[in-house]
């Protein structure tokens, strides 16, 4: 993928000038808020109607936490690197920032976004539509960090550890990710949308894995360990797994019948549509679309339950693995109940399905998104 190299002076300016950042930030609209899904550990989703900007403001960005983090003191914080490397050791934040700085814009979606929309219902955070956002992530390439440590060719999986270990018998959120993906695209980010990475989003360092689900985007990172084998534990062997082959809704797959969740599925959502409309009048329908592929090829809109489709206009703003905003001028032809829906197709040809594939943990929901509109004459 393409990285945008940024010079150190510009980065420092962005990272250390909160007033400037405040000026650049999108001014929120009235009645903005976050839906609290859990007060502690904090989980919150963004109301869908607020996800209308290319870059989601930090304070409106959804929050996913497995456990209450022990936020590291940036002065004492160290990134430990061990495992299959020639030079084990620790890096301070300032040492890390001496590596080439990069900035990417990428969508981040929680693997469980849309879990509440599956039937039969499932336990877990009942995310609806808003555990997703698009942000600019600034940091250093994982590849540069690991090559600096002399990563060995025997390393096939990067084990990642955060400082959010839970107490007692609660399984820690320890993960690993294939080296091929993380060496190609992974970024260790310490800034988000031009501001220092907020604590809720993993300060001082989080892993960014463009195109892959949020379970790989580890927060509060304190240790990287390239290894020959994948990580073991609940969040590798039981959690964050997806069926190898689809089954009927409600079927319980065994762990060996599933593999880890990786790429996002192609998906679009409608963020802006009228609740009531008049036949013959035109209305702007808006939304966003994204995929595990680097870009979206098209978004189509239907108002007749998918019998016919009209192509929406894609916004020109785009970065690889970022979302595409889209818009469509819709003119209802007759009075009555109308159902709008959107479906996206990515550049690899994957088409958003009418029904998401049911899976027992409720991951990667991507059914067509329907919005009801009452049309009068």
């Amino acid at each position, binding site marked *: 993928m393409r990285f945008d190299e940024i010079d150190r002076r510009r980065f420092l300016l962005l990272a250390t000038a909160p007033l400037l950042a405040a*000026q650049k930030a999108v*001014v929120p609209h009235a009645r903005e808020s976050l839906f*609290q899904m859990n007060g502690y550990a904090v989980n919150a989703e963004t109301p869908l109607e607020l996800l209308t900007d290319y870059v989601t403001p930090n304070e409106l960005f959804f*929050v996913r936490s497995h456990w209450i983090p022990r936020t590291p003191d940036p002065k004492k914080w160290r990134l430990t690197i061990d495992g299959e490397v020639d030079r084990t050791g620790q890096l301070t934040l300032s040492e890390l920032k001496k590596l080439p700085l990069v900035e990417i814009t990428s969508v981040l979606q929680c693997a469980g976004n849309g879990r509440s929309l599956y039937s039969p*219902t499932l336990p877990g955070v009942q995310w609806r539509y808003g555990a997703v956002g698009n942000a600019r992530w600034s940091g250093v390439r994982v590849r540069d960090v690991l090559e600096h440590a002399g990563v060995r060719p025997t390393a096939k999986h990067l084990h990642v550890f955060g400082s959010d270990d839970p107490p007692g018998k609660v*399984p820690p959120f320890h993960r690993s990710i294939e080296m091929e993906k993380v060496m190609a695209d992974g970024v260790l980010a310490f800034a988000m949308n031009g501001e220092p990475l907020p604590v809720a989003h993993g300060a001082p360092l989080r892993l960014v894995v463009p195109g892959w689900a949020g379970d790989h985007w580890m927060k509060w990172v304190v240790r990287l360990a390239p290894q020959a084998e994948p990580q073991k534990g609940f969040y590798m062997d039981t959690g964050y797994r997806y069926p190898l082959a689809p089954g009927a809704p409600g079927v319980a797959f065994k762990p060996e019948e599933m593999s880890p969740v990786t790429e996002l599925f192609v998906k679009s959502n409608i963020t802006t549509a009228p609740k009531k409309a008049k036949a013959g009048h035109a209305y702007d329908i808006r939304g966003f679309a994204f995929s595990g592929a680097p870009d979206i090829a098209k978004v189509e809109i239907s108002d007749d339950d998918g019998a016919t489709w009209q192509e929406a206009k894609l916004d020109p703003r785009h970065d690889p693995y970022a979302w595409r905003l889209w818009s469509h001028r819709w003119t209802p032809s007759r009075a009555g109940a109308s159902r709008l829906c959107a479906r996206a197709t990515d550049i690899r040809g994957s088409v958003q399905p009418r029904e998401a594939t049911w899976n027992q943990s409720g991951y990667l929901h991507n059914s067509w998104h329907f919005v009801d509109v009452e049309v009068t004459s």
Partner: protein
Amino acid sequence: MKRVLVIALVLAAALASAATKKKASYDPKLPILGTKFQSLPTGEGKDIVEASCFPCHAADMLVQQRLTEKQWTAEVDKMVRWGAVMKESDKPAMVAYLSKNFGLSNKFTPLRTRPAGY
């Protein structure tokens, strides 16, 4: 020099205005994220649920679920394996309370909150 000072003051005022405007757009009556939690309905088993579940998560996690008795039993068993403290003899009352209040027909409205500092 004077002109530079005036420009700097105007710029500072504009920046301060932008920052103030941003903060003012959130309803100050909304609770800050993570400072107020949902409450559980009264009923037999509520005290047991609060004592066992609240050390690790807010009631929010419970009141949003729509699970069958079988699913609730599996969830309670999982939480016990993960360290939830409860007497085995309390499990039937806990499962009954959760199934009755947060079964398949449960309706959930999340708390609207504002981010800290805004």
